[in-house]
């Protein structure tokens, strides 16, 4: 990873030094507009397993450390400072435009050989969007189409956004029944799982 201490740049320029100068990690040409591409992770493997996310693509619903089900989504980017970024991810119902999950976090991107900055780790530098259970969802999370909005903000105000349709899915694993239960729009916290709740007719 290319790390440039801002303090060294300042010395070279004859400016005043400061031990508090922020670390910067330029990726690409920061005189150009920030470019981003949506990515996702299935919850297994490493950051090398983070993959581009196509419009209409599937994203896995994964049980994280606290419980519930999240989707791991984020961006790869270029023409940015990879060390001073904030990622906002939101899952929105395309019919009502209601956001049913949103998370905002600092992320760190590391320059790859392809000229793009990639999440330093899959777990901490992608959004952990808490999808299930959702008291607000009026359609099942699993199998339905949702609008995913991603925004990358660089300290100082430069920003980029992308929006695409995604299809969260419960992966075929030993958590399949539990996932379908918790991601059903009729699920209420405290109900027994993995029995699939009875649908109320809305999906």
């Amino acid at each position, binding site marked *: 990873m290319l790390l440039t201490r801002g303090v060294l740049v300042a010395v070279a320029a004859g400016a005043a030094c400061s031990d508090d100068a922020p670390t910067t990690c330029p990726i690409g040409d920061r005189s150009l507009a920030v470019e981003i591409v949506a990515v996702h992770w299935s919850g297994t493997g490493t950051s090398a397993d983070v993959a581009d996310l196509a419009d209409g693509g599937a994203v896995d619903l994964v049980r994280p*450390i*606290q419980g519930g089900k999240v989707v791991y989504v984020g961006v790869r980017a270029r023409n940015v400072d990879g060390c001073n970024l904030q990622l906002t991810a939101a899952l929105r119902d395309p019919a009502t435009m*209601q956001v049913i*999950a*949103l998370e905002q976090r600092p992320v760190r991107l590391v320059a790859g050989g392809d000229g793009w900055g990639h999440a330093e780790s899959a777990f901490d530098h992608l959004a952990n969007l*808490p999808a299930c259970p959702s008291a607000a969802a009026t359609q099942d999370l699993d199998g339905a189409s949702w609008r995913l909005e991603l925004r990358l903000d660089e300290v100082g105000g430069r920003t980029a956004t992308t929006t695409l349709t995604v299809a969260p899915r419960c992966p075929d694993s030993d958590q399949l029944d539990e996932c379908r239960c918790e991601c059903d729009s009729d699920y209420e916290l405290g109900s027994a799982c993995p029995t699939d709740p009875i649908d109320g007719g809305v999906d």
Partner: protein
Amino acid sequence: MRTAILSVGLLVACGDNLPGFEPWYLGELSAQEGVWVRTPEFEVAPGEEIQDCYFFEIPPQGVDPLWVDRFQLALNPGSHHMNVFRVSTIRSLDPTSGEPIDLGGVAGTVIRGGECWKAPNWAGWPMVVNSQQSSERAPVYEWQLPDNVATRFVAGERLMLQVHYVNASTQETPFRGRAGLNLHRSRNDTVELGTLFATQQSIRICRSTPPPVYSGTCSMPVGDHKVAAVNGHFHSRGQRFSVYAWDGVSTERPADSARFYQSQAWAEPEMLNGLEVPLPPGGGIWWTCEYQWREPEIGCAMVDARDPMQANDCCYTFGPTVETSEHCNVFLFYYPKTQDIVCF
């Protein structure tokens, strides 16, 4: 005065007869008055963190359901928190595998440590009430719910009282650990209280990175809802905890005018009650945790050992232990209840 007199009487019976300590006292409740629970006292050795899970059932008391409109939660100094949950799907924290224990007004079981530390075990269990207040000055948190609002229980319903104590560098337990809970029966309330528990699962506060800020939202079900009370929870790297009313549409942090809770006290954050904050229909809450890395008094080795990335940057990550990990949790109480809510 009653407290003082009874405290003297208790000095011989209980083990808290240590210099300078005046035990808290909660009255025992008759079946007509409600349900009372007392844990035994327990040692919290220097350098130790304890988390125990006590299980008990709402006893049949002639009137079913039991509506409760007043809570009393008591803690000896040094507690990190006490949380009460409704037991639901059992994973690896099985009340029937616990050690039988006398909890004063009820009999129950206790599981000490082990699975009681592992949050996925109770991820599907609705929260009932919580307290983070255990100062010597105010060891009892009393909460009278809003007019006509109450929490509903049914006879035989199983609850978990989880108690966390710390006697280390960030928090100290100067005497012994002990918790108490009184559920006061309501007579004529008809509006049910609902709860919301939200947490940021993947957080990271590192030595070499800028002070991080994490935000999340939690959407309410359809309907009009008012916030009655709220408290935030993080550990000693936490600088500011904020909760806002949120419209359910915007992806920008709400304006300061929408903020109804802010705390900079990590160790004893107050429960803010007496609120009547309407949440926008179709909306919910937005919450934000701001952190500042600080050198761990125990050194970085144990903090680094917990880091899934093994970055060797003294990164505090998500976890229950106060000394080595961090949290970003919202405990919120609203009415009328549509359903209990979690966001994580």
